[in-house]
């Protein structure tokens, strides 16, 4: 790489990176403002808004609801997505390619269109305003992440392994739990992490379906910005970012370990 071009390129890259990241991170200083309105801290730093976040019953219940919805919808997406990916892998025909493509659809349809459709459907099922409704909707929209990551890990797995397991007298459930799943655990974990983050910061479906009964963290932020400019919002936003980053770091760490293992084994 040329030395003179290198410096310029690095500055440019740094600027682009700053452009991408700074708007998200501006909430950190704002969350520490001593004032009672959204502002950058001047004349001191205060943790009072963070304190609000972890003491105010509204925010606390928002955290609880968000975690609950994200966890349960992730569990559903994992079960259905992994089963789908393994089934397609075992059959391996042209039809299964179509099934896999159909599974990616929730990712490509604009969320608002999807939310509208699901709203009409949920009215009939009486699921509007219920946590179950949001969990199911998030499970469906989280599904593509799981199908994609699990399919990717299955691509490296030889379908003949199933035959080997059967030749040793293993039943189908044993083959699944002892041979197939342990080999694709990294893909399942990655898919779960993405599905969780997806539900964790999803707003549109929650607004459509949650109505005025459910308040996840993103929805509380949305309401807070529309109604009052409490700096606790900045603290919540910071917490959301920190949590998401932590989850992503876990994913990165898992991938590192996997690559390290693969390198050691060959």
């Amino acid at each position, binding site marked *: 790489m040329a030395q003179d071009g290198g410096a310029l390129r690095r500055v440019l890259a740094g600027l682009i990176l700053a452009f991408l990241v700074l708007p998200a991170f501006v909430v950190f200083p704002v969350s520490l403002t001593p004032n009672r309105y959204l502002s950058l801290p001047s004349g001191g730093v205060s943790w009072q808004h963070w304190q609000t976040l972890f003491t105010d019953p509204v925010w606390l219940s928002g955290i609880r609801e968000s975690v609950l919805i994200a966890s349960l919808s992730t569990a559903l997406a994992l079960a259905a997505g992994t089963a789908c990916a393994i089934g397609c892998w075992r059959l391996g025909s042209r039809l299964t390619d179509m099934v896999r493509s159909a599974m990616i659809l929730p990712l490509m349809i604009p969320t608002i269109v999807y939310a509208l459709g699901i709203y009409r459907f949920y009215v009939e099922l009486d699921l509007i305003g219920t946590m179950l409704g949001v969990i199911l909707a998030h499970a469906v929209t989280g599904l593509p992440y799981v199908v994609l990551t699990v399919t990717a890990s299955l691509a490296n797995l030889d379908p003949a392994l199933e*035959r*080997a397991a059967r030749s040793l*007298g293993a039943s189908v459930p044993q083959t699944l739990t002892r041979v197939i799943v342990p080999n694709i655990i990294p893909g399942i974990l990655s898919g779960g992490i993405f599905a969780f983050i997806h539900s964790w910061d999803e707003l549109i479906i929650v607004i459509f379906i949650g109505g005025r009964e459910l308040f996840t963290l993103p929805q509380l932020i949305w309401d807070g910005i529309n109604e009052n400019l409490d700096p606790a919002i900045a603290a919540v936003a910071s917490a959301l970012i920190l949590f998401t980053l932590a989850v992503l770091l876990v994913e990165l760490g898992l991938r590192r370990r996997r690559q390290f293992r693969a390198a050691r084994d060959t």
Partner: protein
Amino acid sequence: MVTPVLVEARGITKRFGPRTVLEDVDLDVHEGETVVIIGASGSGKTTFLRCLNRLETPETGQVRIADVTLGRRSDGRPADERELSQQRRLFGFVFQRFNLFPHLTAMQNVALGPRRVLGVRRAEAEARAVHELTRLGLAEHVGKRPGQLSGGQQQRVAIARALAMDPRVILFDEPTSALDPELVQEVLDAMRALAGEGMTMVVVTHEMRFARSVAHRAVFMADGRIVEQGVPNDLFGAPRDERLRRFLRHLEPHHDR
């Protein structure tokens, strides 16, 4: 051989869609016998081997091993999938491409079946695994994963894995075809030793010298049928069927070891 018949295949027919891969194949294998199956690719050898332990389900025909009919209960009714799994482990199977479980070490590969299928306790299963691996000359490789082993070593782990289930017969599906030439001999030596210990074996192979020196009987398959069989030296020395003559002409100059 004068020992009793252990495996008896009768009228095995297998189709894949419109194509008939096996047509009415019979074969008896005696206790302690080593039978080698030869034939051009596409002759149905591998499918026949898989029909023996029901990795493939034949359209018609039956396989009996000892007093068990595969796919049937003792009262003659059809066996369900779980019962079939139980019956299947009377056969060991060694694959062309080893098919070791990549997430497990050599020892865990061998111990998995005894632990999970036979219900043996962990310590005992691992002791059995180490014993089988040592017997196949792999004592210093027990803790390695398949990716760290050579093809020959992997195939010997696969043989140990089959042995650890204490099968009545071991089926070998071209066990040396996926190996680099310099690794073939170690696997053949292991198989020779097994045959010497009286293990009953059915081996699909192109290794003619192995067939001559180890097998009690050679079976030639073509177009989904058994065309000719006999003592290997007789069969290879004086082939009657034209297809067998052609097959031997093509094979011997390149593959004789």
